């Protein structure tokens, strides 16, 4: 899996002026690494969301077969000004999360989180030792904590995010050491905008699930939730189209001096051996380009995203005679976050966390719709 591994990046010189593409001395060519990486792309999901949905293959459909928006609002302003404790979500950063979509949970209640934790911890013990019965409520090797993250939501209609943590109990002898976190996962919904319409009260809509830790724990926790709340977990892949949206949106965010290079990784299809092309761009150059492209006030349109990507492609073609449009965009990394088409994400900036989650919520909803 390429997840979590940042491919070796060459120097990303300032080369892109934005307004015009001048021929540059060969030495100052954009960073390119033609690495023969083997990327496991056999994801058990649809190649792209677009294939199964009608109309513009992107965005949230309103109504049954309604139109999806061809534009999105600009990413919300960084939330640092708001009265949100960034510390409370800091632990979500710098980890690679695997994405799932989840259908609405039936009869889930915030009032019983402790109870859920007890049941889940017994369930994990029973699953790990098939055939041995486990009493509920006793201390077990793996402790489960289920809690609410009230800050993590977009609007008042959204349900607060739910965090599930598996902690391995430290041996009784060394009481001083803390329990070790071995797996975590969280459900969230940021600006779900009342999807689906008229959902009865018994259902809780938390369409996005993110997991970090061993797949075996994800499967146990996931199946417990599926059994208990009659929901359905599905891996959420990110289509190349969505990735290009992310590239454009995140390029446009103000980052100050700390910004690192924007890196796009493309995979060349139909080769006997996988070939990845890494394309790194200095953030200020990318921002400059984006600012010339982005004109529509208050929102970003599909057209703008296409132009932005086309500019990058034509610049690349000028230097390397490779049409990136014929390859598949598999990964986007910026200072905001890094996303892989297999459906993994790493958040890097607290203040943009909800903005990214909003986009992911949208993708999750379009998958369960």
């Amino acid at each position, binding site marked *: 899996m390429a997840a979590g591994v940042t491919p070796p990046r060459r120097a990303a010189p300032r080369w892109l002026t934005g307004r015009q593409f001048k021929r540059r001395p060969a030495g100052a060519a954009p960073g390119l690494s033609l690495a023969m990486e083997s990327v496991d792309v056999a994801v058990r*999901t649809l190649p792209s969301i677009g294939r199964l949905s009608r109309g513009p293959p992107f965005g949230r459909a309103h109504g*049954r077969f309604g139109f999806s928006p061809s534009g999105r609002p600009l990413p919300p302003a960084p939330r640092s000004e708001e009265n949100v404790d960034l510390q409370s979500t800091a632990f979500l950063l710098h980890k690679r999360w695997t994405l799932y979509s989840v259908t609405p949970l039936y009869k889930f209640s915030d009032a019983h989180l402790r109870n859920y934790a007890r*049941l889940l911890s017994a369930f994990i013990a029973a699953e790990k030792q098939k055939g041995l*019965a486990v009493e509920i409520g006793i201390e077990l090797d793996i402790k489960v904590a289920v809690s609410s993250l009230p800050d993590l939501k977009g609007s008042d209609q959204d349900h607060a995010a739910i965090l599930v943590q598996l902690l391995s109990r430290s041996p009784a002898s060394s009481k001083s050491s803390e329990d070790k976190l071995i797996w975590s996962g969280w459900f969230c919904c940021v600006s779900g905008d009342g999807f689906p319409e008229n959902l009865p009260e018994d259902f809780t809509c938390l369409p996005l699930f993110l997991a970090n830790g061993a797949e075996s724990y994800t499967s146990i926790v996931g199946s417990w939730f599926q059994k208990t709340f009659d929901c359905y977990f599905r891996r959420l892949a990110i289509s190349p189209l969505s990735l290009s949206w992310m590239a454009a949106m995140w390029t446009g965010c103000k980052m100050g001096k700390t910004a690192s290079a924007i890196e796009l990784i493309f995979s060349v299809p139909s080769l006997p051996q996988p070939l990845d092309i890494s394309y790194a761009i200095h953030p200020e150059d990318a921002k400059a380009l984006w600012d010339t492209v982005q004109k529509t006030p208050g929102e970003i349109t599909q057209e703008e995203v296409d132009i932005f990507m086309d500019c990058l492609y034509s610049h690349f073609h000028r230097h390397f005679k490779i049409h990136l449009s014929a390859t598949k965009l598999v990964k986007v990394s910026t200072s905001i976050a890094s996303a892989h088409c297999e459906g993994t994400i790493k958040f890097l900036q607290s203040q943009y966390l909800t903005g990214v989650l909003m986009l992911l919520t949208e993708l999750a909803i379009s998958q369960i719709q």
Partner: protein
Amino acid sequence: MQQERSSQTPKQPLQVRKSQTDLSAWRKGRTTNGEKSVQNHQSPDGQKNDSEQGSFEQALSYFKKVPDRVSLRKNTALQKSLAAVETIALQRGLPPEGFHVLLKVALSGKLADAVNARLLKCLVPASVVPEGAVVSAVSLLCVSKCSSNVQLLFIRWLITMFDYIDSKEQLHALYAVFFHLLQDEKMCPYVCHLLYLLTRKENVKPFRVRRLLELQAKMGMQCHLQALLSLYKLFCPELVTITLPGKTKNFFKNSEGPWKAAMNTVRQRNFPVHQPLLLGTAQPQSRKRKWNAQLIVPASSTSRNNLEENRGSHVDLYSTSQSFPVEQLQTFPQLLHNIHRLEFPSQMASVLTNPLLLHYMNCVKDESVYLRLHFWMSQALQEECTWCVADNHQNEEEFKIFLETIYKTECFLQEGFSSCEEFLYKSLPLWDGVCCQSQVLKLVSWIPLRSFSGMKSQLYDPLAQLFFTSSLYFKCGVLESLTELLQNWLNCHMFCPDSESESQVHSLDTTLSGLLNALAELINFVGRISTAALRLERKSSFLLHFILSFYETVCDIYLRYNLPLLILPPAGIFYPALLSMSPVILNQLCYLMYRYRTNLVAAKKNELSKKKSLQFKISSQTYREYNQYVIAMVGCLWTSNVFQKDTHPQGLRMDEELLKATAVQDYKTSFNIVYHPAMIGYAVQFLQQAFPDEATLNFSLIKGKRWNWYLEFLYAQGLEGLKAFIESSINRVSRAPHGKAEDHESEDRV
């Protein structure tokens, strides 16, 4: 037998209980049978029976007051009594009153172990085991007068005979006593089995759970403990949890060994045709899969939504002890008895394989039920779809089964699922028309009726594309499925004319005009693709048959479904059918025209009788079109003037000059029921029968009286459609030899 089965699958504990045969009925049957058999038997046999009965009664009274410590070897009375009891028991079974006496002796420790064991082994009931006898036996067991071997044998006997005990209320009261016996290591497996049979929800208590877990800790993983604990989990998931290893099949040791042969003998004697009544829907669970790729429809399991209620903070009206676990639902009577305290399973998708729960679902009006199923099914369909998901071809068989299951459920509920509908809309454009062909086409027939405009681009266009580019058989399959679709829509309208109650996510437009538009759109679509397909397939009779079958539903909509909708097949279908070489097709067409006529006449009559203008009425265009068709048909089958009279723009009318130029002799008569290419075979057959001596066939002989004979001959060949058409649409004037056709409808001038 049934017990053995039940002990293997702890998920269906009630199989034991439900499998009880109706003993009272049997008892009656037995006495009458007995009398009869006595009469029928030869007398020596009867006498033998009598004497056996006598010695059995003597034996019983002997055992009633048997003294302590009698040795078998020395005591002939004991020997004789034992033998008498064994003879009766192993052949006919013991009467209920025998159990009191024999159980008491066997467990009192008065006799030697060997004798006690022999006594226990012959305790085979002829009808029932009285509960009182069992209860007093248990009390003897507790004072431990008998050896542990005998105790063990008694528990095994109790398990084997559990179904035959006439009532079990007092036994349930002894639950704690049995539970206490668990500590005996040797007896533990059997006691677990017995508790498994006895346990009810109220028996599951935290202290018992703890005790069982202690035993588990002491003895390790034991099948019998696993089974009992999983039953406890079933009743109280908030107390204990367990995941059963997949491979175990037998959770309990076989108990019925010593009695098996005798039970079979007695059963065969008393129940000559014994059929185990097993309605279980048990199905083999297939191997492991990825956890979130759960194409395997989840097994029914009790909802855990009562987890919170047990915390006791509030009084719950639906007391959890009242609810009936779905795992135990095995028979229809059970469903009826427990319908008020049944809960849906925790994963709604499990209803797909459980017809009983589908019945229940049918009578519960709860939106969340459908929503839960909807969410699950739409995800499962998308994730497992073999033609939408790359590299998923190895799962085609499974996906087929899954689609088949959904289809069966839809047929059962007589209702299409919206999740399935959306899936079809999304995946039809990507479908190759081959993968899971019959399943997909079947599912198409359950697409719900909606009058939204997207139907054309979502369903008709992708379907038409596949239709034109696929084989003849695929075309017939599509037509068959669209015929079903039309029927389902019509039925749906018939049986739920006002679907206001249906507060589905997407409410359907149920106004009459919406309904009529949707129906007309479907019928016209089928008309269009059929016309084109007939050209592509060179007017194949096989294809025509499927097309006309569709119209058999269409032609009767007015009368059968009371809807003002009559659409005639386009000329591109009518003429190929009329000129078809196949008598079957011609006959089918005649029947269609007869039904159209009946419907049109009824519609006309209705419109005339109701003076006020109806909002919806059959357009005069339809009448005109029908009349044109009828003229062509009558000309073609009867009056031999199709070339002159057919006025349809696509009809057969031809100029005389042109006809002469063809150089066909007697072109005028070349189309009627004698010369029509589909009928000429019958004409030949008729002539051969009527004039066996004629060397040459002279078709002109069929006229006058023989014309009528020929008609009778045709009707006798089973051409019912032709008969109905001729009798309804051709007005024969009796004196005219050929009869005279009338284009019957005067409506065309309305």
